[in-house]
């Protein structure tokens, strides 16, 4: 963000959230490691994904971040996800996304990290990290 590289900043934020959700999934499911290298095609469908909505389900925190959850958290989730459709990782192939600029990416950073009820802070509290 300091370099005003809004594409890269938003991309890394997506990966940060993906990583946090996968770690939460391991804790919720009592797994020693994330099941990415399994031969089971069904396991791959649920776990080997960049889709943040899908990862929310396996993390066990849908009840917090979906609209049925507390609005102080679920509103942030919906607002953040507007910039991260299922295929968000493919944006590395198309730079200078007009939706991503200093205001929108700064807001994404607030939602993810800085706000009192930020997504990452809530995940940390729920997972007792």
């Amino acid at each position: 963000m300091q370099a005003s590289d809004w594409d890269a900043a938003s991309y890394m934020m997506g990966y940060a959230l993906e990583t946090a959700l996968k770690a939460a999934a391991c804790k919720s499911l009592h797994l020693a490691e994330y099941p990415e290298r399994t031969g089971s095609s069904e396991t791959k469908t649920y776990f080997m994904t960049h889709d943040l909505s899908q990862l929310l389900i396996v993390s066990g925190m849908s009840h917090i971040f979906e609209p049925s959850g507390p609005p102080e958290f679920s509103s942030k989730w919906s607002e953040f996800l507007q910039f991260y459709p299922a295929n968000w990782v493919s944006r590395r192939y198309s730079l200078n996304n007009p939706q991503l600029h200093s205001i929108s990416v700064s807001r994404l950073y607030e939602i993810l990290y800085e706000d009192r009820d930020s997504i990452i802070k809530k995940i940390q509290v729920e997972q007792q990290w």
Partner: protein
Amino acid sequence: MVDEDFLAKLHIALGEFEKSTGPVALFAVFKMDELTDKWTVIVSGTWVEQLPFQEMFTDLRQQLLDNLGKEGLNSIARFGIWSTNAHLVELILRKYKTGDYLEDQRINGNQIHEGYILKAESFE
């Protein structure tokens, strides 16, 4: 097809939401991408850029909770609240009209398995 009772309740929620927030250009429900068993609610209006997201979200959430109940709200995975000049909104408004039912469509790189357009109205 989308459950008629569910749609009727969504229509009431839409009406109440418009009274409190403003005229809606687009109100649609989709089952999309990997979320095949929960709805994504898409709402758009010219007021989007004037109001804080949390305020619009909370209002919409309350209208849906009041009309669908907790179980109905549980069937929704996320809200998309977009301005009328957002690319996705423009695509939908160009292609679909109020009352359209969608099945196995691709919009803006997203796979729509099932969907219903409760309201589609361009404000020009």
